[in-house]
C-alpha cells in the first residue's frame, strides 16, 4: 500500500530529525547553526503537510502541534524549532481564514473590548473542508522557506547603514549572522573589529580567523578584558541564540558582561537577529538551568584532576546568558531595525497568541 509506505517514510524522517536534535542542535551535532535548524524544521513541516493524512485545517494543526511538541522537547535550548512550528500554524490559520473568505485581520485584532465581548476565538473549529487548502498552505510554507534562505543576506545588506569608516566594533564569540554582516561592510569600509574569545569553547578564535581572512583588521581579547577595552569601542555588534518576548536575549555566555560594560560606557549595543529567532518565551527566574545552560564536556583542564579531588569538585559550564532588554539599543532583523520595546509587536505579527503554548 503506497499510503503506508509514505507514512513510514515520513515517520522515519521525523525520528531521524528528532535524533539529530537530541544530539545537540547547536553546532555540536549534525545540524549546524540555528538557520539550518530553522530550514530543516520548516522543510519537515512542509513534508508533514504534504504527506500526513488530514481532511481539515484543524486536523493538520493538531498533527503539527503534536510533532512540534516532540521536536521542542527533543532540544529545549533550541527555540528555533518551536518558532518555526508556530509560524507554520499561523500560516495554516491565515490560509484557512482566507479560504473562508474572511480576512485574517479581523482575527488578528485583539482589543480589550473584543476580548470581553466575544465568547473567545477558539470557537472557530477549523473543521470546514477546502480542497485548495493543502496547496495554499504548502505554497505559503514555500514562501517562508524562501524568506529563511534570505535572512542572513537581508541582514548583511543593512551593514553599511550601521558601520562607518574607522570605527572600532566589538563582538563576542562566533555568530554567522554577525560574521556576514561585518564582511559585507568590509567590502566598502575600513574598520577594526575586536573579538572577545568567549571561553571555554573559544568560538571567538574561529570568528577572528574568518574575519581576518576577509581582510578585516581583527584583534582577539580575553573575556576579562572586555571592560578595559570598551572605552575605545564605537559599537558593539553581537548575535544571539534567541530573542525573548520582552526584548531580552538568551545569548552566548559572557554577553551579559559585555552588555553591561557597553551600557557603562554608553556604547550602542546592536543585536543582529533574524526573525526566526524571535521566541514567545518570556524569561522566568531563576533562569532554569536547562534553559540557561547545557553542559558540554569541559574536558580541557579539569579532566586531568585526580580521583580524590574530582569527586569533590562540581564543574558547571553555563552556555547561555540572559541579557535584559534595557541594555540593548537596537535589533537588526531581516525586515529592518527595531528597538527592543517594539519586539512585542513583531511577536504578535508572527505568531498567533493561541500558539504560544504548543
Amino acid at each position, binding site marked *: 500500500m503506497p499510503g503506508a509506505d509514505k507514512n513510514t517514510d515520513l515517520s*522515519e524522517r521525523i525520528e*531521524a530529525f528528532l535524533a539529530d536534535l537530541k544530539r545537540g542542535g547547536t553546532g555540536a551535532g549534525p545540524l549546524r547553526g540555528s538557520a539550518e535548524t530553522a530550514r530543516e524544521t520548516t522543510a519537515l513541516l512542509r513534508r508533514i503537510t504534504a504527506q500526513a493524512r488530514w481532511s481539515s485545517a484543524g486536523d493538520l494543526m493538531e498533527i503539527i502541534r503534536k510533532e512540534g511538541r516532540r521536536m521542542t522537547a527533543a532540544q529545549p535550548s533550541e527555540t528555533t524549532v518551536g518558532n518555526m512550528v508556530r509560524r507554520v500554524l499561523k500560516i495554516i490559520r491565515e490560509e484557512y481564514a482566507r479560504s473562508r473568505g474572511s480576512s485574517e485581520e479581523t482575527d488578528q485584532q485583539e482589543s480589550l473590548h473584543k476580548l470581553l465581548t466575544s465568547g473567545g476565538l477558539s470557537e472557530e473549529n477549523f473543521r470546514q473542508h477546502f480542497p485548495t487548502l493543502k496547496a495554499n498552505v504548502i505554497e505559503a510554507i514555500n514562501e517562508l522557506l524562501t524568506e529563511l534562505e534570505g535572512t542572513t543576506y537581508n541582514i548583511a545588506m543593512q551593514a553599511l547603514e550601521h558601520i562607518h569608516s574607522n570605527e572600532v566594533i566589538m563582538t563576542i564569540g562566533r555568530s554567522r549572522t554577525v560574521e556576514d554582516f561585518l564582511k559585507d561592510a568590509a567590502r566598502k569600509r575600513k574598520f577594526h573589529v575586536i573579538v572577545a574569545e568567549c571561553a571555554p569553547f573559544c568560538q571567538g578564535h574561529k570568528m577572528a580567523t574568518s574575519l581576518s581572512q576577509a581582510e578585516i583588521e581583527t584583534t582577539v581579547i580575553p573575556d576579562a578584558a572586555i571592560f578595559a577595552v570598551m572605552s575605545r569601542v564605537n559599537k558593539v555588534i553581537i548575535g544571539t541564540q534567541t530573542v525573548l518576548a520582552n526584548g531580552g536575549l538568551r545569548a552566548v555566555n559572557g554577553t551579559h558582561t559585555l552588555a553591561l560594560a557597553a551600557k557603562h560606557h554608553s556604547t550602542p549595543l546592536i543585536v543582529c537577529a533574524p526573525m526566526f529567532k524571535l521566541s514567545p518565551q518570556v524569561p522566568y527566574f531563576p533562569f532554569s538551568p*536547562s534553559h540557561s545552560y547545557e553542559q558540554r564536556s569541559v574536558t580541557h583542564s579539569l579532566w586531568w584532576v585526580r580521583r580524590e579531588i*574530582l*569527586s569533590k569538585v*562540581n564543574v558547571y559550564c553555563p552556555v547561555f546568558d540572559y541579557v535584559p532588554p534595557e541594555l540593548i539599543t537596537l535589533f537588526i532583523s531581516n525586515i529592518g531595525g527595531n528597538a527592543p520595546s517594539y519586539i512585542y509587536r513583531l511577536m504578535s505579527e508572527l505568531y498567533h497568541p493561541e500558539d504560544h503554548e504548543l
Partner: protein
Amino acid sequence: EDAPAAVAPSSGPASERGKQSRSGGGRKGADDQEEEEQPLQAVLIADSFNRRFFPITKDQPRALLPLGNVAMIDYTLEFLTSTGVQETFVFCCWMSHKIKEHLLKSKWCRPTSPNTVHIITSDLYRSLGDVLRDVDAKNLVRYDFVLVYGDVVSNIDVTQALQEHKHRRKVEKNISVMTMVFKESSPGHKSRCEEDDIIVAMDTKSQRVLHYQKTQGLKKLQFPMNIFHNGSEDFEIRHDLLDCHISICSPQVAELFTDNFDYQTRNDFVRGMLVNEEILGNQIHMHVTKDGYGARVSNLLMYDSVSSDLIRRWVYPLTPEANFTDREGPPCTHSRHNVYRGPGVSLGHGSQMVENVLIGCGTSIGADCHISNSVIGSNCNIGDNVTLDCAYVWNHVTISKNVTISQSVVCDRVEIREGVRLNKQCVLAYNVLIGPNVSLPDGTVVSMHHPDEEEEEDDDEFLSDGDADASQSKEKNKQKGFNPAEVGVEGKGFVWKTSSLDDTEDEELSQCLWGLVLNPDPESDSEASEPDDPDDPVIPSPEMDDVKVFELEVLGTLQRGLEENIGCDNLVVEVNSLKYAYNITLREVMQMLTRVVLEFPFQQQQGVQLSAAQYATVLLPLIERWAPLFKNYVKKAQDHLDCLSAFEEHFLEQEKHWPAMIKVLMSMYQLEILEEELIMRWFSQGATTDKGRQLRKNQGLQKFIKWLEEAEDESSEDE
C-alpha cells in the same frame, strides 16, 4: 537458538538514509560510490563473560542494570546510533530472553529506527572469541564494524577514527585489522578502572600499536626491545590513556578469531596480533580522543564513577533529562546543582537534595531527608530522616525512616526497615529485606540466593574467576535460614561475604564487585616481567614455559658473570639455584647450558652477521673461561652425549659456522670437557636426519675424528 528478531525495513529507505546521513560526496564513480555506501555495522556483546556483578547479575543481566535509571545497553545503542551505525548485532548469552524482551520493547526495534538491531542468542557463548567466531561462521559482517560491550557508556564521535581506519586499509590492503579507541585521561582519574589500567607503546607517526599491556599494579614494566627496532624513529609510551573498549574492526578480525581458536578476549587477540605480527602481517592501530567520554562499567566502582559523571553532565548529550530512550511521559527536569526530578516526585518538608541527585518518576521522599550524589529509581518510597550519600537505589525500593546509606547499591524491590545503616560498598541484591536496627559493615553483600546455590550452577553457567570464593562461603552459611544477627530480626537474605571477617577470600569478592586494586601476587609479578628481559632479542611468546624462562635466566647469569667477572664457582651456585627455582632436570640444564654458550657470540653482537672465523674467536675464550662450569655438570657418559647432541643441534641450525665447529669441538676436547671416547661414540651413533648425516660428512669433522682415532691408537701404543 538463533533468532534474528526484528524488523528489517525494506532496503530502499535504508540505503537512502545511508546517503543522507553519510553526507558523502559519493558522485565520483561507481567504485567510489560503492565504498561510500558501505553501511556501518556493529557487534554489541551484551554479556560480560565474567561475574564481577555477581549476586546482582543472577537476576538480571549486566546490560540491563540501570545506570542513571536507564539500562546500560541503551547507552551503548545510542552511542552506536549517533555515530552512524545502521545495523547492530546484539549477542546475548546469560539471560538472553530478558535482553531480547527489553530490546523488542525499546525504540531500537521500532520500524523507524535508523539502526536496525538484530538479536542473536546462544547459551554456548563463553567469551568474546566465541561470539566473533560465530560472527565469522554466520558471515554476518561484510564491512568494517564497531565492536563494543553492552556496558560501554560513551559519547565519542568515532567517525574520524573510522575514516582513519578506512584510509589505512585502502593504502595498505588488509594490513591494519583493528583500530582501538582511547581517551586521554590522567593516571588515577576516577573514570579509569584500575584493574584495566594499560600501558601502550605506539609509533607516533602511523599511530600503530607496538606494545599493549595491562599494568595490573606492576611497579616495573618491561618492553621487548624489538618493537623499537623497526619502523620510524618516533615512539611514544603512554600511560595516560583510558581504554574505552570501543574498537573498529575489519571483517578479518572475525576470521582471525576462527583461525586462532584459543583467543578468548580482545586482550588475547591484541597480544596475539602484536606478537605474531611478522608471521601474520597484521597490524593494530589506535585512535586517541581528547574530548568525548567513554568508559566501560566493568565493576561497581566504575558503576559509581560513570553514574556520577553522567549526572555531572560529562557525557552530554547523554544526560538524564535528555530522555534519549523515548520513554513515555514527560522527561525529568534539571535544576541547579544538577538535581534532576522525574514527573510525580514528591519531597517532604525539610528534605534537602544537595547536589548531583537524580530521582526517577513516582518516587516519594519523606521529611528531613538529606540526599546527595545519589540516584534513586522510579516508584520508590523513602521515609523520614533518611540520609543518602553516593547511594544507588533502583526501582520499587522501600526505605523506612532513620536509614543511612553511603556508597552502596540497593537493587529493585528491596525493603529497608527502620534504623538500618549501610556502610560503604554494601550491595543489597533483588528483593532483600533488611532490618530493623542493624548496621551492615563495609562491603556486605546480601542476596536472596544462598551462596551455595551458586555452586551447582557454577560449572555450566560461567567460566568464573570467583570459584574459589564460592567454596569458601559454604561452611559459613551451611544453615539454610536467614541469620537475624546479620540481616535484622525481620530480615530476609543471605549475607555473601563480609570483608571485615578475617578471611582473605572474603576480601576478594568485595573487591571483585567494587573492583579495588588487587594486590598483584608475587608469582604473577615475576612471570610477567621476566620474559620481557630487555636484553632478550627473542620475542617472548605469551605462554612462556619454565624451560624457556630458565634458558633466558641462564643467559642472563652468564652475561652478568662475564661483565662483572664472577668466578665459575659462583656461577655454578647461581645456575643450580635457577635449576631448582624452575624445576629443571639435570639433563635439560646440560642442554641449555651448551646451547646458551654456543649461541653466546650471537647475543653479544646483535644483528651483526658473524663469519665462522669471528665466531670461533669470540667463542673459544668463553669456552675456556667457563670450562669449570661445564665440568661441574658434564660428568657421566650420558652427560657427554647430551652435551654433544645439544652441540649438534646448534650447528645443524647454523650451517655457515661448520668451519668453526671443529675448532670448538677441539677446544672442548682439549679443555677436557668432552672425552674422546664419547665423541667417537657420538660420531659413530649416526644421525637421524639427512642434515645430521651431512654434518658428519663434513671434512673438518672427519679429519678431527681421524686425528682422535690416531691419537687414541698412539696413546694405547704408549701404554
